[in-house]
């Protein structure tokens, strides 16, 4: 496990929170195995072995035969850092429970199915860098007005305005707090652009949110 990560005890990620991605997958989600589109936020955890820091290398994953996997991808999200115990809060009061904001990258195998928990794709060691720091909540007037960009080797590959999220930051905090009590230092990655960015061994990945910072990591295996 990487020491000194910014996250404490739990990193909850929200999948399928990009409106255009949901629209594009509408037909798929009406078929088996899904049968109908999701009615609640689609959530997954990045467990503690995945947590990583700004500037660090992200391991290139191996398959079960010990060979390098053929492809990996990255998404980047605003990370909402919980400031105090958050239990069954309303959407209206949800942002009062936020201590600050950071950036979360989710390196994974390419997303192919959302049917079963994607342990093989998402739980890779060092695959969730968080940082570069936590900026205080009062420095961000409206978290839903931010845009998350990803640059790979200096070239912009993705720009995701959080206004395009299906559910807002406040709605997600509220919804999640009715499932589980959140504790100080726990982080919610509220949404990723539907199109994950393909990455290659040795790539330098920068995820940026204006006012929050730039999180920089390099893929291993080169």
């Amino acid at each position, binding site marked *: *496990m990487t020491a000194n990560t910014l996250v404490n005890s739990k990193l909850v990620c929200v*999948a399928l929170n990009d409106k255009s991605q949901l629209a594009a997958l509408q037909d798929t989600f009406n078929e088996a195995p899904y*049968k109908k589109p999701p009615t609640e936020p*689609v959530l997954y*955890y990045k467990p503690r072995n995945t947590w990583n820091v700004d500037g660090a290398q992200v391991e290139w994953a*191996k398959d079960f035969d010990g060979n390098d996997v053929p492809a990996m991808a990255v998404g980047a999200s605003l990370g909402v850092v919980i400031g105090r115990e958050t*239990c069954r809060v309303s959407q209206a009061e949800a942002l009062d429970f936020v201590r600050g904001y950071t950036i979360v990258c989710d390196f994974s195998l390419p997303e192919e199915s959302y049917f079963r928990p994607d*342990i*093989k794709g998402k739980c890779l060691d060092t695959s969730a860098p968080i940082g570069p720091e936590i900026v205080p909540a009062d420095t961000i007037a409206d978290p839903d007005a931010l845009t998350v960009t990803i640059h790979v080797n200096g070239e912009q590959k993705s720009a995701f305005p959080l206004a395009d999220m299906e559910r807002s930051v406040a709605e997600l905090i509220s919804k999640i707090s009715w499932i*589980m009590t959140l504790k100080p230092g726990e982080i919610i990655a509220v949404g990723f652009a539907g199109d994950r960015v393909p990455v290659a061994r040795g790539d330098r990945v920068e995820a940026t949110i204006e006012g929050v910072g730039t999180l920089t990591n390099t893929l291993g295996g080169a």
Partner: protein
Amino acid sequence: MRHARIIFEGRELDIDIDANDRTTTPDGQELDVALDSDDITWLPPVKEPGTIFALGLNYADHATELAFEPPKEPLVFIKHANTLTGHKQVSYRPDNIEFQHYECELVALIGKAGKNIKREDAMDYVAGYTVCNDFAIRDYLENYYRPNLRVKSRDSLLPMGPWIVDREDVADVKNLRLTTEVNGKITQDGSTKDMIFDIPFLVEYLSQIMTLNPGDMIATGTPHGVVDMQPGDTVVCTIENICSLETRIVSEKEYYGDKY
């Protein structure tokens, strides 16, 4: 030896329990209390819980019961410490649901870090065993990362304990009777021999994906025989030679109190 965490006479204690049920603290103090005493408040037995891996559909008869083909690869999902509670504590039934069931499961506690662990070496990484009750709220199932967090990550719905039994004290973990009683009546009666993916397989499988760390736990799934639970019910999950875990079901209102 067995290991537990309790509150006794106002103090939070890590205790060892020997074969004669003698209870001692780390500084050697022997506690003058019986294990079934109401003076003991049982806490979840793992002091610093890490990642909790749980298995779905890992007994063939239970998979059939839920109208699924037994899986060819483990169905693993993750839980965190917010779900944990101890022996003789309460779990809640959400309002306005139709079906909440218990799942009596054998838990393997990881004792040392490892990656790419071979099946034949896997047991060296297991510190001990306990019992958990991995409750599910079936009304909340959706076909996205199923079983989704709304079903499986709720506060208090993973009672565990009362204690960890050292691995070397359990002779045959692959052949233990597993029973659940609801209000004194047996509703689930199986054996760990019917597990599809056993502990060495699961340790190898998970450690090929990621590093396992001390404090991580693997809840190995439940056999056939799940029934609905209502507030006021008492459920006892027992695995032979490990322990018996008792839980009382309360309403959502009673559980959350002022926060309801």
